[in-house]
């Protein structure tokens, strides 16, 4: 049938291109992960397996520096993701559960614009904004910037989920004497939860590994993990960087997996098998 001809597997060289792309994507990560276990100061010569660089990360000369940076990264990511998720949830409700209001489509564009604007532009603009209003750069300025750019990432899964929930569930709740608030807390919110959790985790990851914007708005004297790693790499790559990178990768992969699994669980419409 037609599908035989259009099946992409039958294009010559398809397999080779696929393997090449996968190699390009994952080989560097693989190298970093493998060499984080290298028992050597060298970053290119393999001299046997060891955990010395992981030990170095937690008990070495630079432990204090990385500990502070990690704490900054995680605390900012938690707060930014929380704030962004709350704002994104409210925005999604406003966009999906209200009659047409003036500026609705403009607002939709506005919410998603940060996804399209080059990050460097946002970074410069945010810095200019902070200095224009005389806001002192530091922990708070990083936090505010992170909240703002995390909103669209949290918004996407939450809004997608909400769109899949028919409004008849809330109507059924109100029909059964629930107030508007009860209909939200007892019916709509539990149904939205997978989307909210996905949005939160996505925002968390985006905040955790942001470099460009953070680097612009952080000011002197404060580092997050990405800026600390960048600073260290400028003075030459030491294998402990690879150990830190591997740990960060692990956290990211974990979060993405959770997000994926939560997103797949129980679609609200699955009960109405027609």
């Amino acid at each position, binding site marked *: 049938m037609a599908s035989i001809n259009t099946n992409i597997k039958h294009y010559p060289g398809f397999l080779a291109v696929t393997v090449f792309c996968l190699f390009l994507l994952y080989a560097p990560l693989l190298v970093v992960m493998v060499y984080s276990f290298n028992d050597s100061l060298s970053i290119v010569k393999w001299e046997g397996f060891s955990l010395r660089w992981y030990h170095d990360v937690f008990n070495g000369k630079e432990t204090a520096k990385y500990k502070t940076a990690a704490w900054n990264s995680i605390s900012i990511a938690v707060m930014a993701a929380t704030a962004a998720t709350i704002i994104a949830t409210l925005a999604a409700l406003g966009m999906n559960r209200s009659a047409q209001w003036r500026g609705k489509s403009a607002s939709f564009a506005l919410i998603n614009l940060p996804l399209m604007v080059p990050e460097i532009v946002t970074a410069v603009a945010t810095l200019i904004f902070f200095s224009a209003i005389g806001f002192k750069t530091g922990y708070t300025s990083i936090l505010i910037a992170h909240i703002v750019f995390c909103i669209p990432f949290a918004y996407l899964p939450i809004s997608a989920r909400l769109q899949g929930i028919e409004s008849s569930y809330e*109507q*059924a*709740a*109100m*029909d*059964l*004497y629930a107030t508007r608030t009860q209909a939200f807390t007892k019916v709509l919110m539990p149904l939205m939860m997978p989307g909210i959790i996905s949005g939160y985790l996505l925002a968390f990851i985006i905040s955790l590994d942001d470099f460009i914007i953070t680097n612009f708005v952080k000011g002197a004297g404060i580092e997050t993990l990405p800026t600390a790693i960048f600073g260290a790499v400028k003075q030459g790559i030491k294998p402990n960087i690879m150990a830190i990178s591997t740990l960060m990768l692990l956290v990211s992969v974990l979060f993405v997996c959770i997000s994926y699994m939560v997103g797949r669980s129980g679609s609200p419409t*699955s*009960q*109405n098998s027609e």
Partner: protein
Amino acid sequence: MSIAVAVDQLSKHYADVIALNNVSLSINDQEFFTLLGPSGCGKTTLLRVIAGFESVSSGSVHLHGKPIANLPANKRSVNTVFQHYSLFPHMSVADNIKFGMQMKGSTASHIESRCKQMLELVQLGEFANRKPAQLSGGQQQRVALARALAPEPELLLLDEPLSALDLKLRQAMRLELKQIQQETGITFIFVTHDQEEALTMSDRIAVMSNGEVQQIGDAHTIYEQPRNRFVADFIGEINMLDCEVLSSSASTDTQYTVACDITGLAQLTANADQSVTPGTQGSLCIRPERLQLLAADHPDAKLLGTVDQLVYLGTDTQTTVVLNNGIKLLVRSSNNATQHIVAQSGEKIGIGIDTMAARFLDN
């Protein structure tokens, strides 16, 4: 008999669509009342107005004498069985059933015993802890019914609740629904586009089209005495013969006998709800089962024609007869009738008419 629901001169407009136009009806306490009409005629809109999901453009709705048109849905003692059930997917069957009573603030002990009672009523006792997604369509339908009945509403609204079920289940559920309605004594407003469903279940039926009520009556009246051509055509099958009125006279206080001239064929009498001025153009309407196949030379044969097609339907045989002016008539004869004629296609045949069952409807 007290009146449960009174809808008075109700209209509902959406931008440029008139979904309901000046609808008035009153529904008795403990009645099984059906809204019947083709898709898009405004049945759901009327139900949503009564439930409180839509505001009215004009008119009023009273529930047991209290005006409710401006009350929010959660303040009306009215519950709905939604078309796609809308069971809360994150709650168990029991929690779904308890929801309304919890929101109303019933006592915990009452909620427990009522929930048990409802589960028994719909025969789902052993499924109390399942999630809706783990139930079949028919079971979900029963949970939706139990959930809506549990808070003991003054009125239950059902929007095509059986339309998602397959035929066998649908037929079984008809009887079950009717039985539950009689047991609980709650007034039901049932919406359907399926005339068979309406005829078998309802105490009374309102036939709707284009946002207007065409006729209200019990199944017998709607079927035997349709008030206009829409109702006659929508419910069951009917033959319509163009005719001109020759004269009309009162036969009882409310019925008139009309003599009609079926142009160029015959003169026949029919019933009408009001007196009709001679010369009026209209239709003589008669159900296929009220016609009788006779030998062409039979003295009772009022019309003559040629047999065109025979369809065997098990209990009945449906014969299409082409009259001498080219009009086709459907005749339905019971297959156990003692004197039924086995006609042959192409054969000349006579048709007898039960004139008591013929109705004159103007255009």
